[in-house]
């Protein structure tokens, strides 16, 4: 048995320290992202979620220019952008999308400016590029503490506003009538979203931040329409995909030529995408199946009515 296992797998998965850090930080980030992701997908704010990852990087390069810590540059810019997005105060999905686009475009413009200033003022400016794909297997132990702290804060905020958001998702006016501070709920949620996105982007990369925020939640909302259950499903899917992705990436080192291991971000994103596709296919197929299985008769009422007429 062990022989077979040795034959299939390269071994050392659980004895490598980098793997443990990746599993812990990646799993935790996936958990936080999945919880925040459920409301993000429900509210149609995937674009904002993605934009926040890149906008955080703007803060990262800005912080670098000012000589401030990268971490706080990320979090600061992310939270600021999140509040701006919410305060612009557009509540229709289409307008929100455009507002996000405008803020996003402006943020990217700032990146270009920082790159330019970096050239003229003489600072290094590679950070913005480096962050895109992160490095799950080489996490700086220094970020683990702040990442966990921010993650807990983000989870707490989402839990705090989750009832309000559930009611608001149903109908904003009903929520208002029930005394829900819709505006405050939106701002708090956006802050929670920003924290979740920034910590994920900072520790494991912007691409994974988007995938782990949207993917598991989108899968969960395909499977169930109850919010608490959707959160659980999303967490299981998110953490599961992360662990599996880390494992495949680790193993691919042994089988790929020249030890060009498949990047962990690709593995995780691909698994998340496959999960989403399968829930979509499952839904389509099951709908078609019930249609084909035919019509369940509701007694013989129709006949009786026809006789009556």
């Amino acid at each position, binding site marked *: 048995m062990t022989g077979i296992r040795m034959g299939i797998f390269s071994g050392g998965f659980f004895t490598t320290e980098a793997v443990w850090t990746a599993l812990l930080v990646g799993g935790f980030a996936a958990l936080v992202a999945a919880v925040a992701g459920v409301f993000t997908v429900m509210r149609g704010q995937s674009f904002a979620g993605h934009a926040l990852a890149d906008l955080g990087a703007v803060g990262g390069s800005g912080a670098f220019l000012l000589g401030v810590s990268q971490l706080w540059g990320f979090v600061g810019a992310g939270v600021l952008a999140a509040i701006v997005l919410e305060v612009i105060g557009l509540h229709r999905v289409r307008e929100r*999308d455009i507002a996000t686009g405008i803020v996003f475009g402006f943020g990217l413009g700032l990146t270009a400016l920082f790159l330019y200033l970096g050239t003229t003022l003489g600072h290094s400016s590679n950070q913005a590029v480096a962050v895109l794909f992160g490095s799950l297997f080489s996490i700086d132990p220094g970020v683990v503490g702040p990442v966990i702290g921010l993650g807990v804060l983000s989870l707490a905020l989402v839990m705090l506003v989750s009832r309000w958001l559930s009611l608001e998702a149903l109908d904003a006016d009903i929520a208002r009538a029930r005394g829900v501070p819709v505006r405050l709920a939106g701002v708090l949620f956006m802050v929670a979203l920003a924290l979740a996105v920034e910590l994920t982007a900072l520790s494991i990369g912007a691409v994974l931040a988007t995938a782990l925020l949207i993917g598991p939640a989108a899968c969960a909302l395909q499977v169930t329409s109850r919010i608490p259950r959707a959160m659980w499903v999303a967490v299981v899917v998110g953490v599961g995909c992360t662990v599996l992705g880390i494992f495949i990436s680790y193993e691919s080192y042994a089988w790929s030529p020249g030890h060009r291991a498949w990047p962990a971000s690709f593995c995780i994103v691909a698994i998340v995408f496959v999960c989403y596709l399968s829930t979509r296919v499952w839904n389509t197929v099951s709908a078609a199946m019930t249609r084909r299985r035919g019509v369940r008769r509701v007694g013989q009422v129709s006949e009786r009515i026809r006789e009556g007429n």
Partner: protein
Amino acid sequence: MFAPFMTDTWIAATIVALVAGCVGVFVVLRGDAFLAHAIPHGSFAGAAGAIFFGLSPLLGMGLAAAAAALVIAVLSRRGRRDAVTALLLALLLGMGVLFLTLSGQYSNQAYGLLFGQILGVSKGELVWVVLLGAVSIAGIFVLFRPLLYTSLLPEMAAASGAAPGGMTVAFSLILALATTASVPIVGALLMFSLLVGPPAAACVLAVTPGRALVWSVCGSLGIVWASIAISFGTDLPVGFCVATLSGVSYAVARGWVRARRRMTQTGRPDLESAR
């Protein structure tokens, strides 16, 4: 500023502004800003893949953009396609990393395609921009009414025979076409800003879709020209100028409309009686 080497830059910028102004109106009307961001950025994977397989990066970029457009259009559900877009963008970027890793080569070229050098436009590129830009503008004009109908009143459009699904596919492809030609020249940032900012401002200001189109084209032309001029004067990056002016144009348009509404009436117009 009008030195010989700048001529092609002016021409290319003008064409890109025309294309972005036209296509952008529908980006805004359909709420497709995310798509406008995702398609050019996701096509990075195509460039990386093409380098890996030894093909032309531009070809790879175009193919990836078209494939992304199709997949997003097919998977989108009832106008809600943001989750699908996000996932596909992440997948494409992930594939880009995979290709870069597998090739193990120096990969500046793949990233470089996303940045673009508006000051380094060659005649050969110009031909492509004109060609693809003309096709996408023609597509927008020919499909103008069905696109409008399906994006604003999808159910009624479906009832009168304009398929919303088909229009989504068509528009995504037009967007892919427009960006493939423009991004290697002006960069993903500049193209994205132009596709969203001036058209959004135009849609706030204009009363009819036709006028929105005209305002949008004028706005993006003005922004691009002004940006090149400012960049020439101050040496600030063109992309930054375009992004800033685009954002400012939208903010000014919203502020203007709000101020005008406050000045002209105390109540809201929709409280007026039907007669």
